[in-house]
């Protein structure tokens, strides 16, 4: 696993997002084991407690589950994975819409621009 960290944002959130992305794109599959805390901390050169916090949060969100004595695994619930996908798309959209509104675009204009852009992309 390699992550380009931005030191301006909490590192644990960046780890969480990275793992969520890996799940969404299928690099980490339902039921896969995720690395141990120390292992990942060493690999990423970050504080073990930060990794621990990221994993605990992922657990709280039921994205990973701990099997006693065995380690942490990606949830086996497919619905949960769909949920993360929606959530991350929502975040991305929210930021985009906010940015466009800041640039002074009206809502209908934003929709038109997106439709046009998607069409252009398809015709490329």
């Amino acid at each position: 696993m390699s992550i380009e960290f931005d030191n301006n944002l909490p590192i644990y959130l960046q780890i969480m997002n990275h793992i969520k992305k890996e799940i969404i794109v299928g690099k980490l599959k339902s039921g896969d084991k995720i690395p141990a805390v120390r292992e990942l901390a060493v690999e990423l050169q970050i504080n073990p407690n930060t990794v621990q916090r990221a994993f605990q949060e992922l657990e709280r969100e039921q994205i990973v589950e701990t099997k006693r004595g065995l380690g942490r695994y990606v949830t086996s619930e497919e619905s949960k994975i769909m949920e993360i996908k929606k959530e991350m798309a929502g975040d991305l959209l929210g930021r985009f819409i906010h940015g466009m509104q800041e640039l002074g675009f009206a809502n209908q204009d934003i929709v038109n621009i997106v439709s046009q852009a998607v069409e252009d992309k398809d015709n490329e």
Partner: protein
Amino acid sequence: MESILQLKDVSKSYGGKKALKQVSLQLGAGKIIGLLGSNGSGKSTLMKLAAGLIHPASGTVQVGGMEVGLETKKITSFMPDRPLTEKWMRVEDAVLFYKEFYADFDAAKAEDMLGFMKLNKRDRVIELSKGMNERLQLTLTLSRNAKLYLLDEPIGGVDPVARAKILDAIVNYYNEESSLLVSTHLVRDIERIFDEVVFIREGEIVLQDEVENIRLKHGKSVDEMFKEVFGE
């Protein structure tokens, strides 16, 4: 929370110049803490007080609930900014020296760390480069099974590659039940290994917070925060 290092109203002067002014500080167990400040801010003084190498003019310093002294030295492992080893020593002599000197020295860990650090046992300490010397000092310091580790400027004089190696070693060999206090003025390279940072300026603590809190609250890195506070 169990406090591993506690300073209460500690002052210390050198030749009329105040190095620490009424400093109070509490550090919890199981953390890697950065002690950040520019040169002459009082970092080394604070480290040496915690190590029991110097004594406060006023106030109290406690490690693991005990007044600093013989008993606390047994559970405190200090990495000085200058080597403690003797000129005649080879790397293996330095290890042996530590082993005989400290009851909590873990020879197996030292062996493992020497390999990780690519240190050759037969090399003379005096002939080691600055970077390799820092690796040796770190190996000796972390090979003790202490409660409190004090690293004074561990990445001070080394290039970025050697720096990365030293950071790797800290993350790899740090014992999670102990606390590690690292003083440095090079914040950017090292901020990701900290749980918490303490900013010290002109002998006074100006900030103590969890690093993730700083990022969350201010939307900036510890390095930027440092530059802001120290006006660099």
